């Protein structure tokens, strides 16, 4: 039995907004095993970042977190106070943010910041911390690493800053890395380099990774398991092969038809579309959250909660009233249409 690093049951995050309570994350449950990469994918505003921030206890003040279970390496994160949480951050769990400038301090050299990440948590000398910083900067492909230690964040290109962030997240060999859109702002060539590197480092350190992205290409290539998120909920979870080769939920099926796939989509032909917009998350949504955009929706979808159910394989679940057989048939007929 593989060891679970992160175990979450019924995580909810409510945010107070002027018009009421915005239910950003609604009853999501998942586990991440040692060395495993879980990818959370979904469209803008579906709750990916709030999920990650809630694990790090970095939510905005107006937000409230609740969960039936929330453990990191067996330790219950729900009882920790802010001091204990900040001891964990950067140590047992580290986060790579989308915009590195939000987490790199412009007033300090990158050497300073890398060393500090380790001095804070480990009983080491500055020289030892510096050696580790140089070692990791070289690992993330930064040449002349020792001479970079004296540079300030603004002296580095976006790609280099993102590498520094990755090196910083690895300073204490965290059990769990949370990466929120780590390559979204970067060129495809640098993106590939950074993801390649992240995959290599993860193997080397056997860290677990939660990779948040809206890019289905990245998910397919990097993740072991996938959770598709829509309007605050997980609507489909499974291995990467299950979700990409046999998507069950109408939303996942729709998403995969929207992207041109070289060699598969006919050039210039119409791409699939998901008309409509995501529902407002303020207040309660009756029934399936996707019903307002789903081509198969009927009255049954709009009443009562729709629960996650297993597809053909047990490790593959989706949230829809339709049976696995009907979903498989929809996948075929939808692709032909």
């Amino acid at each position, binding site marked *: 039995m593989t060891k679970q690093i992160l175990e979450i049951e019924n995580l909810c995050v409510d945010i107070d907004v002027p018009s009421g309570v915005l239910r950003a994350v609604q009853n999501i449950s998942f586990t991440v095993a040692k060395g495993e990469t879980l990818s959370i994918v979904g*469209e*803008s505003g579906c709750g990916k970042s709030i999920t990650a921030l809630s694990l790090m206890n970095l939510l905005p003040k107006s937000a409230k977190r609740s969960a039936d279970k929330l453990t990191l390496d067996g330790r219950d994160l729900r009882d920790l106070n802010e001091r204990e949480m900040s001891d964990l951050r950067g140590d047992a769990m580290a986060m790579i943010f989308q915009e590195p400038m939000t987490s790199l301090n412009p007033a300090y050299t990158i050497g300073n910041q890398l060393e500090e990440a380790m001095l804070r948590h480990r009983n080491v000398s500055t020289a030892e911390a510096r050696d580790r910083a140089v070692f990791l900067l070289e690992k993330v*492909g*930064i*040449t002349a690493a020792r001479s970079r230690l004296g540079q300030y964040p603004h002296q580095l*290109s*976006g*790609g*280099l800053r993102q*590498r520094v962030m990755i090196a910083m997240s690895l300073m204490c060999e965290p059990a769990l890395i949370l990466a929120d859109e780590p390559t979204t702002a*970067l*060129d*495809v*060539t*640098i*993106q*590939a*380099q950074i*993801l*390649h590197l992240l*995959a290599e480092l993860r193997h080397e350190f056997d860290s677990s990774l939660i990779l948040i992205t*809206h*890019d*289905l*290409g*990245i*998910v*397919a*290539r*990097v993740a072991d398991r996938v959770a598709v998120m829509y309007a605050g909920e997980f609507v489909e979870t499974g291995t*990467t*092969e299950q979700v*990409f*080769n046999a998507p069950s939920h109408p939303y996942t099926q*729709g*998403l*995969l*038809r*929207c*992207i*041109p*796939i*070289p*060699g*598969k*989509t006919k*050039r*210039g032909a*119409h*791409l*699939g*579309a*998901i*008309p409509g*917009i995501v529902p407002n998350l303020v207040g309660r949504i009756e029934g399936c959250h996707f019903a307002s955009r789903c081509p198969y929706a009927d009255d049954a979808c709009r009443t009562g909660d729709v629960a996650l159910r297993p597809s053909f394989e047990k490790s593959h679940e989706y949230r829809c009233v339709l049976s696995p057989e009907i979903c498989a048939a929809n996948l075929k007929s939808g692709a032909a249409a």
Partner: protein
Amino acid sequence: MSDPVIEASDVTRTFMISAGFMRGKQPLHAVNGISLNVERGEVLGIVGESGCGKTTLAKMMLGLLEPTSGTLRLDGKLVGAAHRIEVARILQPIFQDPYSSLNPRKSIGDIIMLPLKVQNDPDPATWRKRAEDIMDLVGLPTRVYNNYPNQLSGGQRQRVAIARALINRPKIVICDEPTSALDVSVQSQILNLLQDLRGEFGLTYVLISHNLAVVEHMATRVAVMYLGRIVEQADTDTLFKAPKHPYTQALLGSVLTPEPGLGVPDTHLGAAYPNPIDPPSGCTFHPRCAQVMDHCSKQAPPAVANGGMVECHLYAHGGGRKSPKRKSK
């Protein structure tokens, strides 16, 4: 038969930028000698990494920026910033960011009619009707006519930008990252719309995008830029099936298609990102090139015509190595 609507010949654009505290100003050659034709009716894709000069080139085509040297012709006539309004009648832009490219204090209707106003359209009585017609065409409900940009979704805002670009029936539309700020479900709707409008109005597109899958899907021909120059040009099929320039090969090799199990490729590009103020000698790509030869750092490579064009020493003197075929799928 060649029938160019835009002809750029040896166009350059230099910015003077400060090189650091007390170091004075130095030239940055954002566009460094580009000759390129846009043929009537085609969809010309322009790709290349951030900072290679794509937007600078587009702005010169639009008459929003004066070339430092070289000439640009639109329908055979020379263009420059002095002809902005005439240019706008033929050529319209759609920019990347639907959040910042629309004036937040103007209503949707006013934004869409702006080109008519700027171009002194002689028939103001028809403006509202024309705005509503074009809104209909791009899939915007006319009830948002009096709304403001912050009341619309990202996809709707990009439709406003498209409606504004098309209201006075231009011949050419320059789309600079038209969908990169959008979710894939919205992106596909906008791409479908651009395809439909092209058929309906016989438009010519220049499509600038980081997303190579989008370019492969939309473009009929592709130009690849690196540090201010076009290093390869070919029709879409040829470019994607048999890329010649080592940079094009690395670029295409880094595309992550949504196919599980293939992993993330190693681009072999290295992290030696060039400094545009002090570009490498010879072929500016040589420090990152997997196939670099001795003379690459000494001599700028010639442009070799091969149906398309490639600027690389590997293909000079009619010889050179064969390009590795892309894995077919």
